[in-house]
């Protein structure tokens, strides 16, 4: 589904990503973790071409992301993405947020889009908020709407970029629950997150990044039981202490 081969990216002399290689098969759930500044968010943004990269190749569903001939908008319409800061459109109601891309990008009718939006809103438990605006919802609710908005496009896979990092602690679980349910339904997911509990429960594989390199890429059992690199051991020791 997603194939990342020797991807490197730099800003001038500063290397953000160095020689990253991994892949995600259909139905797989991958958690990408690592210290801040390790390049994990950048890597996930390269997958749908929001960040350009200078070397290597990324294929999503057989389409090359780095190829200048690729119609990136078309590709992105098939790849759902959820952001750290939700990024709902504040000037539109929740239903409009859910409908707009369905109508303008996929060419669905307004009614069809509204219908689909309401169904998904129900699924994330927010049907009652349909007429509200994003500013009237809590962070956790906004993020659930953002997930529903991405799902409305019938994506072939979902990218999560630290979806719970900007949330108050008591709202983290409502978002993780939605993600867990999604994983159980067989969605292909690539999640940048520090939620190791989520990784242990849901992930098939864990990727650990440090200084722009993929240091570990293992099954979650292997990763949590005996991480090979010293950096990952330190990271886990710190993060699992709490």
């Amino acid at each position, binding site marked *: 589904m997603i194939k990342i081969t020797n991807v490197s990216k730099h800003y001038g002399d500063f290397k953000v990503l160095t020689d990253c290689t991994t892949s995600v098969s259909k139905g797989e759930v991958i958690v990408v973790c690592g210290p801040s500044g390790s390049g994990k968010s950048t890597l996930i943004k390269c997958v749908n071409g929001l960040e350009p990269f200078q070397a290597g190749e990324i294929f999503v569903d057989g389409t090359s992301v780095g190829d200048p001939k690729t119609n990136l908008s078309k590709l992105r319409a098939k790849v759902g993405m959820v952001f750290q800061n939700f990024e709902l459109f504040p000037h539109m109601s929740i239903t409009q947020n859910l409908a707009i891309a369905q109508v303008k990008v996929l060419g669905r009718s307004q009614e069809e889009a509204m219908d689909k939006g309401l169904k998904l809103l129900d699924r994330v438990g927010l049907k009652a908020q349909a007429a509200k605006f994003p500013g009237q919802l809590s962070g956790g609710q906004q993020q659930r709407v953002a997930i529903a908005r*991405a799902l409305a*496009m019938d994506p072939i896979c979902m990218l999560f970029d630290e979806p719970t990092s900007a949330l108050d602690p008591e709202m983290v679980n409502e978002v993780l629950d939605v993600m867990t349910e999604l994983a159980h339904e067989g969605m292909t997911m690539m999640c940048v997150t520090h939620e190791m509990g989520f990784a242990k429960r849901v992930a098939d594989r864990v990727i650990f990044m440090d200084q722009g390199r993929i240091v570990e890429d293992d099954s979650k059992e292997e990763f949590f039981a005996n991480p090979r690199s010293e950096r990952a051991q330190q990271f886990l020791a710190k993060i699992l202490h709490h």
Partner: protein
Amino acid sequence: MYEFDWSSIPGALPFLWEGMKVTLVITVQAVLIGIVWGTLLAMMRLSPIKALSWFAAGYVNLFRAVPLVMVLLWFFLIVPEFVGQLFNIPRGTDMRLSSAMAGFALFESAYYSEIIRAGIQSVPKGQISAASALGMTYSQAMRLVVLPQAFRNMVPLLLTQGIILFQDTSLVYVSALADFFGAAYKVGDRDGRLVEMLLFAGAVYFVICFSASLLVKRLQKKYSTA
């Protein structure tokens, strides 16, 4: 001691109203064209295409570095010659209003584009990312997501610029066009009551502009609490 005599004002009101209409026409069309052309300029300025960005930057810097009176004079003296030849308009046709309108619109676009550019940049970058991630093209993201938010943030500034423009229209006196100020001057001069007439005209400008800016302030408060 100067003796004020206001008696000539009531009789002059219809003539003054004609002038006010010219002032309003110039103001409104310059605001409208200024916002549309200014938006295009702002988008060119922010565009990744170098040539467009340079053109917009050059345009804005040129108009912002030249006094408005001079721009109006160019349009009054030079442009009608060219346009007249181009479209075969007979010499001596009165093109003062259209040259003034063109001058103001093109000049104000430069200022509006700077306001709009700041407005576009005030919308968080993540909004474009989110729109793109949903498969929108750059122009869809701009049109549907960024510009509506930018304009909402900008409304007070755009209106304030409109108030300044309303006052600046008095500069059309360089082409002897009878806007509100010009009409007041002409009538006052004719009746030998220039001082009274100009004081009256000043009071009218003050009342209109001051109440308009109060309105903008109220609007601003409403938006900032919303």
